[in-house]
């Protein structure tokens, strides 16, 4: 708002006034800049109320009792400002106080907090001593109860007390955060944190604002509105408790409280003038960080005439050079002594809003951050962070020679706390960022939706509505989007079970496979889209490269790792070369990626679902061949897909008719009408995100039984014909699908209906892809061994027939090749091709029954 640009240099030599040593804590309650009185105040034209937008609106209401009528303290303020002996000091000896009187704090020095803006003394107003507003040091407890900081409704003493109570009492056994390792959730959380500080020696106390809000709403509000005043009070409180408890602790400097997760978490786009000088949390991506800037905090001047020294503190980026030496009254004799001045670290960082927050068709916004001291160099370009800080606006400075001013403010955020959101992503669980915050109405709406009986069908319909029919495929993809439950079997030695569902679509070109893939890629937050033709193994996994600037080896991650917890869509899967495909084996079952390159050996998580599309080898699907023969993929890879769908162009009149109607409607319906018809993509996305993060279904007793039965059935079907049609892998697939289906219903328990649907879908997919083209029987061994059981059986039969034929020929040691073939053909009731005949010969040769040399067959 109206931060003054130029400040009066009313600095006094406060260094020498040791008689009234304010405790260091006192120094830490600077009033907000904008609320400070300024030049005009002291010359008698005090503005009654400063103009801080929300505070103004609130404070008269919230603290009406506290404020006496402004004119009264206007009068009183005037004389005080000129009263040198008054304890009111602007700019305090904050950092240099040795040995504070406070019992426990002992020698621990205070570190300035540039993040809170100019370090100035709180100007407090005693509201009850009418007419005599005395600016008193905050912690003088005598009057403390009645004091509020100028321009706010913050009473230092009560604020401190409340916060101490919060630290000592706050317990929330339910709220678990990932930093909470080793914390006993039933003990006061922040007392344990203080203990940690005592042990580790890192004097920073991170406070979750959400906790504070649940503990004391009003204190929270004050923190958000007046962070500049309240945080130092918190510091004070934390230090008092800490040094009471651990009087012998030695810290580098006093504890600084760093609040984070202010509920006013905002999208960068929502920042507006009302947020100025308030505590905000925004998320974004670091795009640039500056070099370290040493910022002078306190300048040291020495008089060149009499060697009198003085210190001047920075005030909003400026040092007011004393023009007169106080000691000898020589003008312009003070010289700056650089190496006795105090500097602090500062860094400028540009934050860009994260891609998810950007509205379509607009370019991202950026905001400047200033990091100070310890927070310098904590983030690198590319990091996703949540930043908590104070939003500032500074007028662009008056040009001294031109009377006009640029009417624009520069804005930035003084960082108080960083929280990286994706540093953990490559290792460890990442549920927190996954949990998109949903408003209560949204959750209510989603839950309402989940109760609908036909929710599964509805969602399936909402998926890629422009693609016609293929309902089962859509259902399969829907289940893939939800995924199964993650199970941990590490203690029994099997590691994590895969929860992700992999799907392969194969079929005729032009059946909108790519479109489906594109849709899914656009739908999921962490999707990757690659084409088998264009990607190499390196592009899929990860590669090591040398950073040109730092000469460091850097691991660059590829599509599979990037889509960890998402979906990797691979188009033209069949065009992928062998070595690339082999990478997928590990990913698709173990869900990890092992890398051993250039001295970096590691295992990355790649818990990604794979949605692949493949075209048949002969460009048109040959219904006379099996899936394997059609797409020529190794069966080891195929068996890793839970569902394999064929997308064929059905030759069916009714279908054609429906398709035509659907397409025609595309060509004249207006956009609005289309949207009405289907569930919104955003709703679908939220629904999936919610289910993925909050619903974790477990198998129920009945469902377990049903699964067992289903599995046994599947095995039985095969065993009747002397082959195995189901493997444990198929059982796992069934479980995953059932879980995903339970998730669709927002159910915590997998029930029989889920298993039924899983079975149906699995069978449906099998029917399409694992049907033996010769017999029409579903045969899983096509996928697992690459050859159908009947084909194998027929081969054996032929070999046996051939053996009999040869044996019936008697003792002839050698036979003519062509002769034998003709005889076999004559004998057999099915057509015998030359290939089949050769195969049978080979089988017999393997049994050491005969050898084939050229055109003759020799018996052994």
């Amino acid at each position, binding site marked *: 708002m*109206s*931060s*003054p*640009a130029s400040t009066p240099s009313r600095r006094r030599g406060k260094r020498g006034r040791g008689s009234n040593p304010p405790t260091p804590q006192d120094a830490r309650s600077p009033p907000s800049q*904008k609320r400070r009185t300024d030049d*005009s105040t002291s010359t008698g034209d005090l503005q009654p*109320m400063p103009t801080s937008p929300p505070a103004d609106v609130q404070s008269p209401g919230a603290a009406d009792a506290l404020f006496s009528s402004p004119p009264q303290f206007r009068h009183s303020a005037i004389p005080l400002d000129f009263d040198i002996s008054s304890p009111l000091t602007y700019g305090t000896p904050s950092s240099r106080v040795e040995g504070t009187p406070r019992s426990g704090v002992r020698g621990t020095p205070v570190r300035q907090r540039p993040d809170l803006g100019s370090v100035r003394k709180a100007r407090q107003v005693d509201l009850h001593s009418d007419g005599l507003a005395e600016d008193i040091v905050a912690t003088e407890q005598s009057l403390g109860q009645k004091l509020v900081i100028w321009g706010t409704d913050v009473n230092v003493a009560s604020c401190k007390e409340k916060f101490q109570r919060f630290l000592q009492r706050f317990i929330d056994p339910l709220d678990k955060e990932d930093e909470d390792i080793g914390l006993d959730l039933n003990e006061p959380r922040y007392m344990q944190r203080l203990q940690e500080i005592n042990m580790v020696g890192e004097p920073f106390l991170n406070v979750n604002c959400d906790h504070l809000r649940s503990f004391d709403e009003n204190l929270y509000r004050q923190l958000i509105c007046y962070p500049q005043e309240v945080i130092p009070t918190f510091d004070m409180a934390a230090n008092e408790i800490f040094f009471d408890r651990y009087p012998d602790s030695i810290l580098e400097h006093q504890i600084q409280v760093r609040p984070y997760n202010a509920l006013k978490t905002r999208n960068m786009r929502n920042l*507006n*003038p009302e947020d*100025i000088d308030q505590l905000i949390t925004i998320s974004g991506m670091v*795009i*640039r960080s*500056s070099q370290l800037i040493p910022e002078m905090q306190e300048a040291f001047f020495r008089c060149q005439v009499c060697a009198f020294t003085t210190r001047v503190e920075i005030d909003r*980026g400026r040092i007011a050079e004393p023009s007169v030496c106080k000691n000898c009254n020589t003008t312009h004799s003070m010289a700056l002594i650089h190496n006795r001045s105090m500097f602090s670290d*500062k860094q*400028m960082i*540009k934050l860009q809003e994260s*891609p998810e927050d950007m*509205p379509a*068709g*607009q*370019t*991202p*916004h*950026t905001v*400047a951050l200033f990091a100070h001291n310890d927070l310098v160099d904590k983030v690198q*370009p590319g990091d996703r962070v949540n930043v908590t800080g104070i939003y500032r*606006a500074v*007028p*662009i*400075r008056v*040009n001294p020679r*031109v*009377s*006009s*001013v*640029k*009417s*624009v*403010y*520069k804005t930035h955020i003084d960082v108080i706390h960083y929280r990286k959101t994706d540093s953990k992503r490559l290792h460890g669980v990442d549920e927190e960022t996954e949990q998109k915050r949903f408003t209560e109405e949204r959750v209510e709406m989603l839950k309402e939706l989940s109760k609908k009986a036909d929710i599964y069908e509805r969602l399936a319909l909402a998926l*890629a509505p422009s693609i016609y029919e293929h309902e089962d495929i859509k259902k399969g993809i829907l289940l893939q989007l939800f995924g199964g439950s993650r199970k941990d079997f590490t203690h029994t030695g099997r590691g994590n079970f895969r929860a992700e569902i992999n799907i392969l679509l194969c079929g005729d070109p*032009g059946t*909108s496979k790519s479109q489906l893939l594109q*849709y899914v890629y*656009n739908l999921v937050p962490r999707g990757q889209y690659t084409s088998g033709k*264009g990607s190499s193994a390196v592009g899929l996994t990860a590669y090591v490269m040398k950073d040109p600037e730092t000469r460091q080896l850097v691991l660059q991650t590829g599509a599979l790792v990037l889509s960890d917890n998402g979906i990797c869509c691979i188009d033209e899967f069949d065009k992928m070369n062998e070595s690339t495909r082999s990478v997928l084996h590990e990913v698709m079952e173990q869900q990890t990626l092992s890398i051993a390159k250039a001295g970096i050996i590691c295992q990355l998580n790649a818990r990604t679902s794979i949605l692949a599309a493949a075209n048949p080898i002969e460009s048109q699907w040959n219904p006379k061949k099996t899936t394997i023969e059609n797409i020529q993929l190794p069966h080891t890879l195929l068996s890793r897909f839970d569902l394999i769908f064929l997308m064929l*162009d059905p*030759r069916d*009149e009714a279908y054609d*008719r429906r*398709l*035509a109607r659907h*397409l025609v409607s595309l*060509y*004249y319906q*207006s*956009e609005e009408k*289309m949207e009405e018809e289907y569930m919104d*993509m955003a709703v679908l996305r939220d629904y999936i995100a919610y289910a993925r993060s909050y619903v974790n279904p477990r198998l129920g007793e009945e469902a377990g039984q049903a699964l067992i039965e289903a599995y046994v059935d599947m095995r039985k079907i095969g065993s009747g014909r002397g082959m195995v049609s189901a493997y444990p892998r198929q059982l796992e697939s069934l479980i995953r699908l059932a879980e995903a289906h339970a998730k669709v219903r927002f159910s915590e328990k997998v029930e029989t209906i889920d298993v039924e649907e899983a079975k149906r879908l699995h069978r449906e997919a099998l029917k399409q892809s694992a049907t033996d083209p010769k017999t029409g029987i579903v045969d899983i061994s096509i996928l697992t061994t690459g050859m159908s059981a009947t084909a194998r059986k027929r081969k054996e039969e032929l070999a046996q027939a051939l053996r009999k034929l040869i044996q019936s020929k008697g003792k002839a040691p050698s036979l003519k090749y062509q002769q034998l073939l003709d005889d076999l053909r004559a004998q057999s009731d099915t057509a015998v091709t030359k290939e089949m005949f050769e195969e049978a010969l080979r089988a017999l040769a393997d049994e050491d029954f005969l050898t084939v040399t050229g055109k003759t067959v020799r018996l052994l």
Partner: protein
Amino acid sequence: MPCVGDWLNSPLSIVQGIFAQNAPNSDWEKKVTEYFKEKLKENNATNWVPSLNDVPVHYLKPNSLVKFRCMVQDMFDPEFYMGVYETVDPNTNARVLHFGKYRDVAECGPQQEIDLNSSQTVTLERQTFYCVPVPGESAWVKEISFLTEPVQARVSPSTSYTPSRHKRSYEEDEDMDLHPSKQKEQHVGKSSGGDIHGCVEPKRLETEASAGHHVISPNCSPPLDLNFPLPGEKGPACLVKVYESWESFKVNDVLEVFGVLSVDPVLSIVNSEERDSSTLDPMECMDTAEEQRVHSPPASLVPRIHVILAQKLQHINPLLPACLKDEESKTCEFVSNFMSELSPVRAELLGFLTHALLGDSLAAEYLILHLISTVYARRDVLPLGKFTVNLSGCPRSGAFTEHLYRLIQQLVPASYHLRMSIESMNHSRFVPRKDYTANRLVSGLLQLASNTSLVIDETQLEQGQLDTAGVHNVTALGNLITWQKVDYDFNYHRMEFPCNINVLITSEGRSLLPSDCQVHLQPQIIPPNMEEYMSSLLTAVLPSVLNKFRIYLSLLRLLDYSISDEVTKAVEEDFVEMRKNNPESVTADDLHKMLLVARFLSLSAGQTTLSRERWLRAKQLEALRKARLQQQQCVNGNEL
């Protein structure tokens, strides 16, 4: 009531008047926009406003009302400014309230100071867009819109626009720019240089300074890149400051803005000094020098416009009323008048294009369909209504494609001719890229406004190796054609920007780029001199007829379209029938194409519903086209 000249020449004084009347409450902002809206509604008032597109900046009066037809190239961060501020006279203590809206600089009188701590101060927010003239805008659009503006004569007879005035104003402008810094230099020179060279130096310094400035000032030391998407573009780039509903605007939107022109030289000076003093002031060093340069370029080069009114344009064809959707009688009349004479126009256009395509009427038919195609909806990822035509079999001789493009350029309001070659694919930037040092979106060839015609000439392509950049460029082109979207490169991630660009590919054989439909050209005549042939073709068309062609192509694109149930049924039947006979020959894809052709065929005849006859005609066209392709394949097969 202020007269015409007032609101045109000094809109800020009007604003001041309204502000003074309504002051502290915030109604005044609304009243200002209403006032100007009313003013501009008056008969042809919009034509009176000088346009930045036609008139060079230095002809225009600072702080006057101007208009600008432009495309949003980039969006900068919102800025907070003093919406209302107070000045105080230190001597008399008199306080005056001012408004900061529509201004870059907070003004105050010579004896006044701005009170930054006043309780009256209101901080407001505005958004800055970096706008460039519509890329690829055809010359005729510029000419016609310039001619319809009778500004020169009427608005400011006394001020500018006379050649003599031109010269002076130019110099003055320069002087304004030059003086402060020049003087500074002189001062420095005098004081530091001492007396030794005293007499000689100032003169030399002055010439040097001004000479140096000539180079530096208009296009800073490394020349300031104005960031036009297409190479060789000219025209002013502009920082457009938007005060209202900026969320509704998107990158690549075409806007017409009316606003206050601000070329205050202070802007540039403030900048240069900020840069000088940046070492002293940590507050200022948060932006890099590049960012400074880009975000606050010299005002003489990149003027500012403070928007009072802004509207998105559906089209930029000056021959059409700006907004066709509104129910004004005048627009309706215009449309219905034109519709009545539609068929002769279509016939003439077809004839014209047939000649242009060397006598191939089928290709000409398809070219018309292509030219009126537009993406009218998106069904999840699928853009509907795009109709990319691949014109194969183009003769390489006589620069046929070159001339064809020239003709198309005469017909459409915005176009670009992309000559594909190994060299150009490898070395040009197609996809816009975010430059984080300068914090701006560096434009690329594919950052085009909606309905721009992109003619890709593949006949020039030779064998050779594409490097990584080339492959990316080809992929980007492919994505553009298939999905009508461009993935802008934000370094750490990509952002998808939907677009609506008509792509026409000319090639010898089948194009390596995907396309919706391939038409094989069958030239009936091969003119010995292509250039002469084409230019005579153009001169043969009367300008009035040419204008009709232009209206025709722009107008039909904007019509609505529907299919009745009855015809739907018929189409269904047809499809089923076709599949029955030969399922291989007709796929869903073919039906898509036929429906597209039917859509544009109906529209091209001015019909907004599909009729049975049109459907049959569409089928016939498709059949003809396919037959030609097959024939071509046979020929090729024989050759092999």
